[in-house]
Structure formats: C-alpha cells, structure tokens
C-alpha cells in the first residue's frame, strides 16, 4: 500500500481549524500507549497530566507563570516563521534579555525607585532585540544561515550567564552560591492577584503582545508584508517590500519579546539571576508557535496547553512516579503530529493498493 497526496484546489478551512486538535488527540493516544507500556494506567496518567493541575486556584497561577514566557516568545516567533526567517535562538535572546534587564537591580542595588521596573523591562527588550539582531545582521550582510547562527548564540548566552553569576555578578553576601543578589522590592514584577497565588504581570504582557501582534499581522500593511515576503520573496520584491528590512524586523520583534519574557521570568518568578533560568522555554515556544498555527490568538491557547504539560509532568512525577523527562518527549511528539496534520490542509491523502507493475513503470514514480 502506498500513500498518495492529491493537491486540494484550495486550502481546506475545515482542516485548518481541526489540525491542531487532530494533533493533540494523536499525542494523547500515543501517550496512553506509552504509559500502558510503562505499566501505568493511561487514564490515571492523563488525569494527572491534564486535569489535576487545573483543580486548584494556586495551580492555575502556576499555569499562568509557565504560559507567560511560552506565549511571549511564540508570538514573536510567529512573525519570524511567517516571514520565513528561522530564528531558533529564542532561548538565547531570553537569557540576553534577562541579563540586560538585571543590570539595574544587580549593579545599582541602591537605586530604588518606581522607575526601576519599567527601565528593567525596556532594557530586557533591548537586550533580547540586540542579541537577535546579530543573526539578522549576519544573514543580510553575509548571507549566513540564520538557523545555525541563532542556535550557536544560545550556547554562548548560556555560558555567558553562567560566567556572570559565578563571577562578576555573584552575590557578595551569598556564601559563594552561583547566584546574584536578590532583587529589591522595586525590581520585582508584581503579582496580578496576590491573595490567591503568585502569577505575575508577565502573563498580562503575553496577552497584550498576542493581541497587538495579531492586529499587526491581520489588519496592517506591515502584516501583509510579513506574509507576502514569507510565501514569495519574489512577489514581495515586485511589491516594493524590502526583504532585508523584513529580516531585521522579524528578528528584532521576536528578540524583544523573548527578552521581555526573560526579564519577566527573572523579576517575576525567580527574583534573582541563576546559572539556569529557563527549562527550555525558547525551544518549547517553537512547538507552541506551530500548535497555534502561527496565529497569535491560537498561540495563547497553545501556550496554555504546553504550560499545562509542564505542570502535569511535575504532578505525574509526584503522584505516579513517572519521570518529568517524559514531558519533553511528548512535546516533541506533539510537534510531529502538528506538522503531519497540517498536510491535510493542502492535500487529500489517498491510500493506494499496490498498483500493477507496468503502471508504476509508465508513471515512473513512487
């Protein structure tokens, strides 16, 4: 039996809407099979992953904390991916934003005023944008592959952060632990609703960013430019759009949002810099972006789902003793299913029985 693709005359609206759900269901089925193989009850496992974390208010707050960076980063990545710029170094831009945003509370701890926090957020965005503009510059000036350069810069940023918190920025009163001093009260991103849990304003930033970028993409000329240059650079050139300007635009927007995510995480959830400040948000956000079909509003939902999987991983580890490493395998699997299900948007899939031999030869294909 062979699989044959038949091009649809036009994109299927039905499957455009359905494909993320098909992918989710397939991932759940695969997960259930895997848990059965591990000797756990699949229903129990799915319950702890996806229902248990939603039962308590404080845990919904944790969900918002995990979803904020994922949504912020993925919204930026959607601009990149739609314009055919493959920024996969958001993890590095997240770290760069966290470091740049931490300059004030770490180096000038005596400067305490309400203005500190807004400055930190702005510096975080500048830091992330500046770091993202390196691969953009190399791509436009030297034709360098942005996938490889942006990824290499992730390792560089991680090592730089490690050096900072063990070296020049180490807390002088911290008993040699590799961490910076605790941020003072004016450098802490406040909680949204502190009587019920610790979710901070980063989640609000994420929602605002998603709506703004959605508006930009769907209602402005700039958004049209993003999509035209992404689908056909040639057509974009004829329309007078500059593709090198677009490279910078996409990288700077996504870098700034990743940087904002970084400083929000540090000042909202952690309260200081440490050698590791992200459980791979920058990479998981790639999955979020695709699961949300590169639509910022879809990305909000996708970000919440992936954040839930992080929480569920912790819950399942405690309650049924499944390693939290399982989550990352699931997340990878989910992206596979998303990409596969997207094929249905453009093609109908036909299963063909073994064709007669001579027909194969005369067609000359598989």
């Amino acid at each position, binding site marked *: 039996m062979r699989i044959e693709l038949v*091009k649809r005359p036009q994109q299927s609206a039905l499957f455009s809407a359905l494909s993320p759900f098909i992918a989710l269901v397939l991932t759940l089925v695969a997960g259930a099979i895997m848990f059965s193989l591990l000797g756990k009850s699949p229903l129990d496992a799915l319950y702890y992953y996806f229902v248990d974390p939603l039962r308590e208010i404080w845990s919904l707050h944790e969900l918002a904390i995990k979803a904020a960076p994922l949504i912020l980063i993925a919204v930026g990545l959607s601009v990149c991916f739609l314009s055919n710029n493959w920024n996969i170094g958001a993890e590095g831009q997240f770290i760069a934003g966290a470091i740049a945003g931490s300059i004030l509370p770490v180096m000038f701890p005596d400067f305490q005023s309400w203005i500190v926090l807004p400055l930190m957020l702005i510096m975080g965005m500048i830091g992330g944008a500046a770091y993202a503009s390196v691969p953009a510059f190399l791509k436009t000036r030297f034709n360098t592959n942005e996938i490889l350069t942006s990824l290499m810069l992730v390792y560089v940023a991680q090592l730089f952060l490690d050096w900072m918190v063990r070296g020049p920025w180490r807390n002088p009163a911290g008993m040699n632990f590799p961490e910076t001093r605790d941020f003072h009260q004016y450098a802490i991103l406040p909680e949204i609703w502190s009587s019920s849990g610790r979710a901070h304003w980063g989640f609000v930033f994420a929602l605002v960013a998603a709506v703004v970028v959605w508006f930009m993409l769907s209602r402005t000329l700039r958004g049209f430019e993003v999509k035209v240059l992404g689908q056909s650079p040639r057509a974009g050139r004829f329309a007078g759009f500059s593709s090198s300007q677009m490279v910078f635009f996409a990288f700077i927007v996504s870098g700034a949002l990743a940087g904002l995510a970084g400083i929000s995480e540090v000042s909202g959830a952690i309260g200081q810099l440490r050698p590791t400040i992200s459980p791979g948000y920058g990479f998981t956000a790639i999955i979020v972006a695709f699961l949300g079909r590169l639509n910022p509003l879809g990305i909000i939902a996708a970000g919440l789902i992936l954040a839930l999987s992080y929480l569920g991983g912790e819950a399942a580890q405690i309650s049924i003793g499944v390693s939290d490493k*399982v989550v990352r395998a699931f997340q990878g699997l989910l*992206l596979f299913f998303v*990409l596969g299900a997207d094929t249905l948007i453009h093609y109908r899939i036909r299963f063909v029985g073994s064709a007669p031999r001579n027909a194969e030869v005369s067609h000359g294909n598989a």
Partner: protein
Amino acid sequence: MGMLEAILITIATAATPLLIAAVGELVVERSGVLNLGVEGMMVMGAVTGFGVALTTGSPWLGFLAATAVGALFSLLFAFLTLTLVTNQVATGLALTLLGLGLSGMIGESFVGLPGVKLGSIYIPFLTDLPLVGKLLFGQDPIFYLSLLLTGGVAYFLFRTRAGLTLRSVGDNHASAHALGINVILIRYLAVMFGGACAGLAGGYLSIVYTPQWVENMTAGRGWIALALVVFASWRPWRVLAGAYLFGAVTIGQLHAQALGIGVPSQLLSSLPYLATVIVLVLISGNRRLTMINTPASLGRPFVPDR
C-alpha cells in the same frame, strides 16, 4: 608518547563524531533534503549505544544499535517531509526536540554509570613506531572507519553512476523525475544513510569520547556538523578538514582551561560555537563558492505529478 602526539590523538577523537555526522548529512543534502534533526538523531544514537554496550558488554553491539536507531529515527523525518511533504526546517527541528526529550527519558537510569570502553587497535611494530605510531596505527577502529567513510562517500558521489543520480535528484528533482528516476526513494535512502551516520556519531560520543551518558551530551555537535557541511561547500574531503579544525578548537580550549590561563573557562567553552559562527560568515560571504556547490533543490518539497 610525546605530548604533541597525545594532543593530536585527542583532536582526532573530538573530530571523528563531527566528521561521521557531517559526512552523513552531506549525502542527505546532496539529495536535496535539509535534515536539521542531526542533533536529535545523534543524541538518540548516544543513549542507545551507551545502553546496549552497557547491557551486553560489547561496544560493537553498541555501535550497531546506535547506527540502527539513527536510521530508524530518521525514517520519522523522511515519512513526514517526503511522503507528507511537511516543511523540512520545522520537521528537522521537531526531530531534534523529540530526540532530546526521548533520550533524556530513556537514559535516566544510565546517568552516573561507567560506560563500556572500546580499546585502540594494536599492530605489532607499526604501533610502536616513534612519533607517528600511535597516531597512525594505534587509534580506535571507528576513527579508521570515519576516514574510510569520507573516502567512500567522495568516491560514491563523484565517481559512480548512483552518486551522479543522487546529485541530480538534489540539483533538479523535476528533471530527475522526468528521466524516470525515483526521486522519493532515493531521498528516503539518503535520509536513512544520514540518520545511520548521525546515530553512529552519537554512539561514538557515549562509548569512546566520554564513556558515560549525560543528558543532552551532544551539546550542539549535531548543529556544528550541519555547519560543517556548509563550511565544506558540500564536498566530503573539505568536511574532513573542517571537522579536524573544530576538533583542534575543542581540544585547544580544553587544554587552555587545564593550564588555567587567565581567561574565564566559560569563554573558552564557547569558542567552538563562536568559531562556527565565524566560519559560516567567512564561507557564506563568498557567494560564488556557495552558489556553485549548493544543491539547487535543497529544502524544496517535491510532490510527484501523476
């Protein structure tokens, strides 16, 4: 054994996994497919190779399993990109993310266990030669295999009919298809060859280079291998040169750390990554060189018309 010889041997050990993975990816890209999942296939090879070598006690079975798992894992990518015509960049990323996640899960029980070592070969008299004996005749068998592989791929691509066919598929899949060449089948085989090489390279890391399992132990080597293919402008012998250059940078920075020169160790550790960026800039800036050698259909989807 002199200091210089010892350093040269460690450079070869650092370069071998890069060489194997990059030569495999070179064949994939020559067939017109860009598989960004090298890191994922490599780390799957590393965890399988380590696990099988540990449970059976045989490093050879470890290498075999690593190679097989790399090839099998790459089939996932091949099915999506070639049969379902998904975006190759996104699918390659998915393969890497899945590989890193799965290997962490599989390898959890291996953390901290001592691995099975593979001995170096010994040829009486030749290995005992002063200066060059150990370097030329006293390394591990996979080192020699990596050189054979490079030569074999160079011969296959540029001296055989099948190699010409593979390159034609990579340069113009529509014409190749019109000539009756089975484009999709050839690409499937190329992707699996690349997967097998990446798996073997991963196995080398966890059996020979550092005989242990650590999560994410590939540490970006799959991505460096991808960069090496660009650096080599898709030519096998240049991959060899590039891999040894990176091996030298890796080992050089390790020695500098050991000597305790007054530079932060993190800066030294980031040198291989920075070197990758610099090398890419130097090569990509030369448009003539890259234009001539880049497979023209690289990364383009192909749906046979019927």
